[in-house]
């Protein structure tokens, strides 16, 4: 994993993250543990595979990096390798999950991301890498870029 761009958090981002952290401490999502550091901009979160799933008893680490303009911009969320074997998780820790990219919205939180990731893990029927893992990891330059949809077809009868 290359170094992340680390522009300092803006004031809005700082305030928001402090509130999220408090909320997390009061009401942590089950199966997750935030490893306390003094770095508000990078959270390291321990994930425990849910009981009764392929990942039961396993522990992984998520690294969440917040951009300067969080929450208008999505956080970068990756698994610290070794990443779980999963059809949507690449060996470099990148996760293919829409809410981390195009479908991110400020209405989401670290906590809701964690819950989505755990649900993605839990629903996996098979432990394997994505079919294009090697090629992707080789080609990988910063796994994401926010995109905005511009096109739609209008039904002018409505």
């Amino acid at each position: 994993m290359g170094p992340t761009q680390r522009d300092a958090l803006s004031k809005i981002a700082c305030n928001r993250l402090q509130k999220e952290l408090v909320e997390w401490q009061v009401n942590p999502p089950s199966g997750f543990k935030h490893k306390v550091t003094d770095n508000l901009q990078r959270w390291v979160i321990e994930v425990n595979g849910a009981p009764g799933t392929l990942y039961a008893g396993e522990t992984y680490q998520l690294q969440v990096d917040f951009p300067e303009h969080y929450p208008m911009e999505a956080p970068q969320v990756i698994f610290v390798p070794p990443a779980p074997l999963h059809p949507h998780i690449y060996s470099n820790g990148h996760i293919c999950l829409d809410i981390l990219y195009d479908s991110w919205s400020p209405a989401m939180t670290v906590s809701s991301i964690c819950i989505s990731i755990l649900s993605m893990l839990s629903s996996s029927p098979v432990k394997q890498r994505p079919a294009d893992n090697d090629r992707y990891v080789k080609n990988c330059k910063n796994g994401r870029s926010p995109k905005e949809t511009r096109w739609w077809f209008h039904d002018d009868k409505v």
Partner: protein
Amino acid sequence: MQNQDGLLADAEVEGISSTQASNVDDWENFRDDAIMQQQSSIWAEEAEKIPFVGDKAREPLSSLAAEYQSGSPILLEKIKLLTEEFAAIRRTRGDGNCFFRSFMFSYLERILESQDQEEVHRITGNVENCRRTLQSLGYADFTFEDFFALFLEQLESVLQGNKESISHDELIQRSRDQSVSDYSEWHITHVSTYVTWMRKEDVKHMKFLCAAFLSASPYNVSCLVVMFFRFVTSGEIRKRSEFFEPFILGLTNATVEQFCKSSVEPMGEESDHVHITALSDALGVPIRVVYLDRSSCDAGGVSVNHHDFIPNPPSGGDLPLAAATATAAGGSGGSETIKPFITLLYRPGHYDILYPK
């Protein structure tokens, strides 16, 4: 503009894949740096061409006709009709937020011009209702409170425009004393590179424009206010999910919840009649959308269609002022009597602001 749209559309088709946890094909596209680069360069170009919200003085409606010169005769005919009714267009950037951005600008501009304190009072009440809606739907306060506070601040700041602070007087004075081109230079130097030219009549917008629309940052006030509208829209749709469900099913296979998560709350997601209805209802603000498309009626005569989104006031809720006034004036007050003060021009995929003559 058309080409921009076309190009973007092409890029989207390639990149559209990542909507759900991937299969192999998704990443085939996603990893394609060329596509990503092309898209971001299109974005940069688009951003340079059109600020988040443009300057109406620069765009008499005739500029639309020029844009379609070699286009469909139906469109040209419709533009001609529009020219009879409307004086100007203010363009907004085509970044998927154009409906919300057009609405925001149009609404705040209206308040700035009318200094209508009653309307501000009314909408503030509705904003509080929206806040309660989100809370009751289980949104954590910290996810939306900053956006709400910011919108309320904007309302206040446009009202304060009334009190003609010294700097505001100064601006008007300058614009009177200087020729347009002098003023333009002064403006470019002192204010921004985004809004490059303004008429005297537009100077009063300046303070507001400067504060709200000039920065390219994602924390640009107009982006944050767009997000406020997205929260409000999503809350309204979820609150009245039974009402909206059939419309949403008509657009997509998604559930109401999925629709809100994937097509309302994320920035850059296009707005449809569902969004417009929900926003108009939640805030109690009527909106007219004028359609510029290739449709024509069978009879052969060309006319420009429009649709009025008239708020459906919640029981006991505040009736929008415009509606109340119209009702009083029109006696029994069918919805036909309500004339929205916000008019948007819709062209497939895009909304801009229209100014009546």
